[in-house]
């Protein structure tokens, strides 16, 4: 009797177990099917036939319209230091600034040089490239997400140098993220999605005053201008935590886009001038530079000299004291005309 009861309970257990397993499997299949049904259609939304953002010819049009003698490429390090109008007036020449606010590191600079400056009808005499420390040999710095989309906007379908540098420099995580974005390019509508949320909020607060597609929050940016913020010691702490291998010049130059920039410019007969800006100094004097960074800079300097490239380093300039800095590495707006003058004085020979 006991055996029979035990046996039947074992069978019931087994039935329950297998029944539950079958239901579990069905549930998983159902869940996966629904998941893919919902996620599949947006996968078809592709920013372009290739899944890459299309080339934005606006900067090229600007270049062609201005036909500048001098071109300046950079980001806020450039715009906070050099006043475009003061510069053009002092030089008596047409100048053109290619800017990527909050971005523009070496990959963007490379694409701007290749597909804007050197693709224009008129070749400029000189191209000035502003950079900080070791960023010139870090193709992956600010080259993900929205930064990458900016680079894609300056890229054509086939960009072998960029692809090579990125493949060699990306970490496995960056490589994976890049591949996933390629598989599911709908992610590139993120700017439009956040703009839509912002527009709805703007419509609620100020109906009819914000055009769809414009960021409603932009008009409030002035409230958070640098002058209204508490003092910040540094705006770019990422650099402080940087991996020391980034300062191994010999190891980095081969995987960077710098040789390609120099080669393209030489082939086009355009002079490149690299300008290293000074980071935020201390109250005692120029910013501290680690031994690794000093060694890196020696390598970079020798590399430029070996390739006949002009290079000017503002680090340690006695006129660039802490009181001229606003936040982080940015120069105070009121000192911008003097900063432009300083730039012209220091690089006087370059303009002769």
């Amino acid at each position, binding site marked *: 009797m006991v055996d029979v009861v035990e046996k039947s309970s074992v069978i019931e257990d087994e039935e329950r177990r297998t029944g539950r397993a079958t239901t579990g499997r069905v549930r998983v299949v159902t869940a996966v099917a629904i998941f893919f049904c919902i996620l599949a259609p947006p996968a078809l939304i592709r920013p372009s036939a290739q899944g890459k953002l299309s080339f934005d010819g606006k900067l090229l049009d600007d270049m062609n319209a201005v036909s500048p003698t001098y071109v300046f490429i950079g980001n806020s390090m450039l715009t906070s230091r050099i006043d475009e109008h003061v510069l053009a007036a002092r030089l008596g020449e047409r100048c053109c600034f290619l800017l990527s606010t909050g971005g523009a590191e070496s990959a963007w600079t490379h694409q701007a040089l290749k597909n804007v400056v050197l693709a224009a009808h008129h070749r400029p005499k000189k191209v000035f490239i502003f950079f900080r420390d070791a960023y010139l040999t870090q193709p992956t710095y600010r080259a993900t997400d929205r930064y990458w989309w900016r680079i894609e906007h300056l890229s054509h379908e086939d960009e072998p140098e960029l692809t090579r540098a990125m493949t060699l420099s990306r970490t496995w*995580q960056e490589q994976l993220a890049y591949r996933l974005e390629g598989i599911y390019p709908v992610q590139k509508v993120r700017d439009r999605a956040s703009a839509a949320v912002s527009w709805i*909020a703007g419509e609620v607060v100020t109906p009819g005053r914000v055009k769809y597609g414009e960021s409603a929050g932009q008009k409030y940016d002035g*409230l958070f201008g640098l002058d*209204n913020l508490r003092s910040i010691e540094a705006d770019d702490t990422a650099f402080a935590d940087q991996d020391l291998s980034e300062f191994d010049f010999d190891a980095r130059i081969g995987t960077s886009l710098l040789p390609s920039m120099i080669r393209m410019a030489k082939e086009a007969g355009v002079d490149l001038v690299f300008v290293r800006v000074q980071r935020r100094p201390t109250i005692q004097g120029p910013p501290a530079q680690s031994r690794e960074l000093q060694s890196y800079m020696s390598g970079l300097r020798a590399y430029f000299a070996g390739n006949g490239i002009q290079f000017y380093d503002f680090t340690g300039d006695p006129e660039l004291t802490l009181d001229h800095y606003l936040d982080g590495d940015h120069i105070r707006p009121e000192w911008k005309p003097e900063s432009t003058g300083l730039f012209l004085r220091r690089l006087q020979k370059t303009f002769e």
Partner: protein
Amino acid sequence: MIFQSLDFIVFLMLVVSIHWLLAPRYRSVFLLTASYVFYGYVHPWFLFLLWFVTIAVYGCALGIERLPSYRKPFLLLGLASCLGMLGVFKYFHFFVGNVVFALRALGLDVSGPAIQIVLPVGISFFAFQGMSYVIDVYRGQVNARTSFVSVALFKAFFPQLVAGPIERATHLLPQLESRRELRMDLLIEGLFLLIWGFFKKLVIADNVSIIANKVFLLEHPSFPLLWAGVLAFCVQIFADFSAYTDIARGSAKMLGINLVENFRHPYAASSPTDFWRRWHISLSTWFRDYVYIPLGGNRGGRLLEARNVMFTFLLSGLWHGANWNYVVWGGYWGLLIVGSRYLGSLMPAALWERRGVATLQVLLMFALTNVGWLLFRETDFHYLLRELALRPWNAAAGDWEAAAYFICLVFLYSLPLIVHFYIDARGGVAKVSEPIASRSSLAIRTATASGLFLAILVLRTANSGDFIYFKF
């Protein structure tokens, strides 16, 4: 390793797969190894601290049980190990800074030590979990484990190691020691929790944090902007912290382990006591069981109860961070609880049952919670006093409009939280955090999860900040 990284996604997929492929007897050792990889991923030397606490609580718990005449010394040693580690790594600079400040106020020319101590992530969480184990063994609520792997895994189980929930030995240890079966329903449930957690962090918390961070960087925030920033932070901290808990619970579920719930719609609280029954439940119950009740709880009269509440909350504030603003924040909550209990005893009971009163209570509680978040968010206490005391109502032209815009934006990003609350309140089937009840609910929930996943892809911010509770 941080949750919102590809590293973690790959790590979790590998750990879950290998865990279920392994023979049951190897699973605990494997999970322990994986937990150490998780914790030591960026700073391997942090592992030494974890090992130190693990060995200390393991040894002290065994000592309490096996050497009854030395129970108290072993208890004190176990507590001292955890508290000593917290004191050195979390409170050293705070303590020294205050001593130096006091001595300078007395006219002495002293300066603090030049050494810099790095705060290891999750130290407060695993120290408290360690203390609860030793105390529970001392109280006889749990048996001291002879298996070092069990105790080590209880201390280091990776989903909850860095920011909780703070598990009790009575709840987690038996689960870790039992033979776990792969259950598809738990796996799916875990996956849903993960997606919901990632959505809250990457879409809600990160987007509203942009507003809060901007406002709290202002030198002189106007009245409307300041409170818009506080509201943004209010949403941010809930979305951020509850996201961490959901990701932790989801990851654990995929490994067949149930972690305790940490949040129950805290902003629907109707009183300060109710708030702490809904917010960071594992911490508030920890303080209740190991501090408040041993102090006497609500026994011994109103005055003693008030003392116990204040002490518990001041300590809870200090647990959050080595800064005076957290102590003030704790004190603020202590006062609210003492005050509300006193007021509650004065009012007729029928008043609370009136229609509309409950809604008013929730609204008032939400406003008071926001005042608390202002104290919590602004770590520069002098700045806070100056701004609130000197210019409480200032507002330049356009500030009201900007504040309305930011509040609207915060509301839009909070809509999923509001919908979630509404569904839970109505007892609907589409609860993202509850077990699958039926086939139809599975369909609805899968559709919801897919929508959330899509929203993560298109609405997440460019950069995701660290979880707020990482620094505690």
